[in-house]
């Protein structure tokens, strides 16, 4: 090759490199986005938008009341609601643990049988507890308050705790227009639970890297979509495709809100079985605090449909609630009793699924998950993108002392209770 030809070749190479460098951003961006099919995109979009339309605790007339929310927040962290002042709701639902507790099985006054679920986005669930024994957040709140293994309180104890503290009593009166000192204790218990339900109903987690990706796909913004990590994209493709995870982990909450049997052992201890959903339905029906009870503010209508029409079936044995996967990376360990320590272990359960261990009557929903080690890592990467970065960072707002002022003027002062002004 002559010297001039060599320089021409070098010049051409440099020119190509310059052109390539200028073009690189769009080319690289497109290259970093998998070629999702229209059907895959449709399935991905079904997992949003986030946040969903606002919702409120069912059968709870105070669910949207700022006064009740304020009271509920205080009660949630107040250990005096437990019989010996050692436990509060936050003992098992700690903000720094994404409103769970990081244990396989929670610790009450004794070791308990189940894992504490995160309370993030509880308001968007249909049933509460791994067995769905409660149909509202407020009714679910009553159970640990009274359970001898947990806070071991009573209606009288809760009523005394509320009435005996100036701030609590003031906030109670402000929220419910009644003096807790003269209330029927069960009334105060239910009101306290509704206040807690109102507060927990405000715990809606923020947007995640997945949500940004999902919305970028929806708007056709390929550059924005390409910022989503490739391993998460691959994991997502498996999630909505070959993994068939969306059979149960569907919609913006990544759960259909019902129950399923995935072949997990359901012995609590040798000789004792956790009845799961079957026991939950029976407990729900027997509850004095369900949405059909006199304590419910639901008064019929759509809110009570689920409770009116639920029916125990034999296949409910061995079924536990399908949890939301939002913030799943923040709430290890996993399953109703925390028997799986990591997300990788969860995937391993589905890979090694023993169909003979499925308890339900001939159901054919699950098949062993056929993925290799790399695909397994990709799915974990995807699941990690379902976390709100603030899931462990909830902070209580600043509070001011409670004040109740009497009305004056045209309405006059008709009496302490009727003259209360909410602040």
């Amino acid at each position, binding site marked *: 090759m002559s010297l001039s030809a060599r320089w021409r070749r070098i010049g051409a190479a440099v020119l190509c490199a310059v052109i390539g460098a200028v073009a690189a951003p769009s080319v690289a961006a497109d290259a970093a986005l998998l070629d999702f099919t229209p059907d895959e995109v449709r399935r991905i979009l079904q997992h949003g938008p986030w946040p969903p339309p606002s919702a409120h605790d069912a059968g709870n007339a105070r669910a949207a009341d700022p006064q009740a929310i304020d009271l509920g927040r205080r009660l949630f962290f107040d250990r005096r609601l437990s019989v010996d002042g050692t436990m509060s709701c936050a003992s098992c639902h700690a903000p720094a643990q994404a409103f769970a507790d990081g244990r396989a099985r929670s610790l009450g006054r004794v070791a308990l049988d189940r894992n504490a679920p995160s309370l993030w986005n509880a308001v968007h669930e249909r049933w509460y507890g791994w067995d769905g024994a409660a149909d509202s957040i407020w009714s679910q709140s009553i159970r640990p308050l009274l359970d001898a293994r947990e806070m071991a309180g009573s209606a009288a104890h809760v009523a005394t705790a509320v009435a005996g503290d100036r701030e609590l009593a003031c906030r109670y009166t402000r929220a419910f227009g009644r003096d807790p000192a003269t209330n029927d204790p069960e009334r105060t218990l239910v009101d306290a639970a509704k206040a807690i339900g109102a507060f927990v109903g405000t715990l809606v987690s923020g947007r995640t890297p997945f949500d940004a990706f999902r919305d970028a796909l929806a708007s056709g913004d390929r550059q924005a979509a390409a910022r989503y990590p490739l391993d998460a994209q691959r994991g997502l493709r498996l999630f909505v495709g070959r993994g068939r995870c969306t059979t149960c982990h569907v919609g913006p909450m990544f759960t259909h809100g019902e129950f399923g049997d995935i072949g997990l052992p359901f012995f609590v201890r040798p000789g004792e079985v956790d009845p799961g959903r079957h026991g939950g339905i029976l407990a729900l029906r027997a509850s004095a605090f369900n949405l059909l009870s006199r304590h419910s503010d639901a008064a019929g209508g759509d809110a009570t449909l689920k409770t009116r029409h*639920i029916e125990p079936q034999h296949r409910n044995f061995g079924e536990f609630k399908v949890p939301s996967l939002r913030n799943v990376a923040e709430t290890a360990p996993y399953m109703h009793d925390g028997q799986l320590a990591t997300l990788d272990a969860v995937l391993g359960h589905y890979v090694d699924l023993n169909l003979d261990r499925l308890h339900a009557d001939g159901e054919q929903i699950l098949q062993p998950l056929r993925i290799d080690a790399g695909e397994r890592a990709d799915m974990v990467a995807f699941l990690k993108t379902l976390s709100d970065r603030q899931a462990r960072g909830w902070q209580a707002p600043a509070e001011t002392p409670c004040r109740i002022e009497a009305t004056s003027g045209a309405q006059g002062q008709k009496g302490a209770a009727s003259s209360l002004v909410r602040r």
Partner: protein
Amino acid sequence: MRLLLAGAVVAAIAWPVGAAADCGEALPAASRVRIAHGATTLVFAPRPAPLAIGRHFALDVVVCAAAGGSPRTLARVDADMPAHRHGMNYRPTIRALGGEHYAVDGLMFHMPGRWRFMFDLGSGADLVRLMHEVDVE
């Protein structure tokens, strides 16, 4: 799940039946489904429509007979997912509204996929089961 009782006849999806062509005409045209078998026609429409995963819905149902005949009574409504071999988690209830009209409350499809409605009409040896499959995503 037991599908057939003695004397029951299973019918597949829909073709127009001239004698009951106006059956269920008052139901919303965009969402109503017509099922027929012999002299019996059943028309239903979900409420709200369209069907959505994880949302309770009702069915408005009209049962018609051929001219001169008496329509069978709607005795039972249920649904399952044939591929998964499981049913709904909720038991629907039927309200007879008079004449040929019924409201069925409390249904929910909790999983995406193919669901199968089952409508049992009549009883005993006169029982007829009409079915209709629908894909819900």
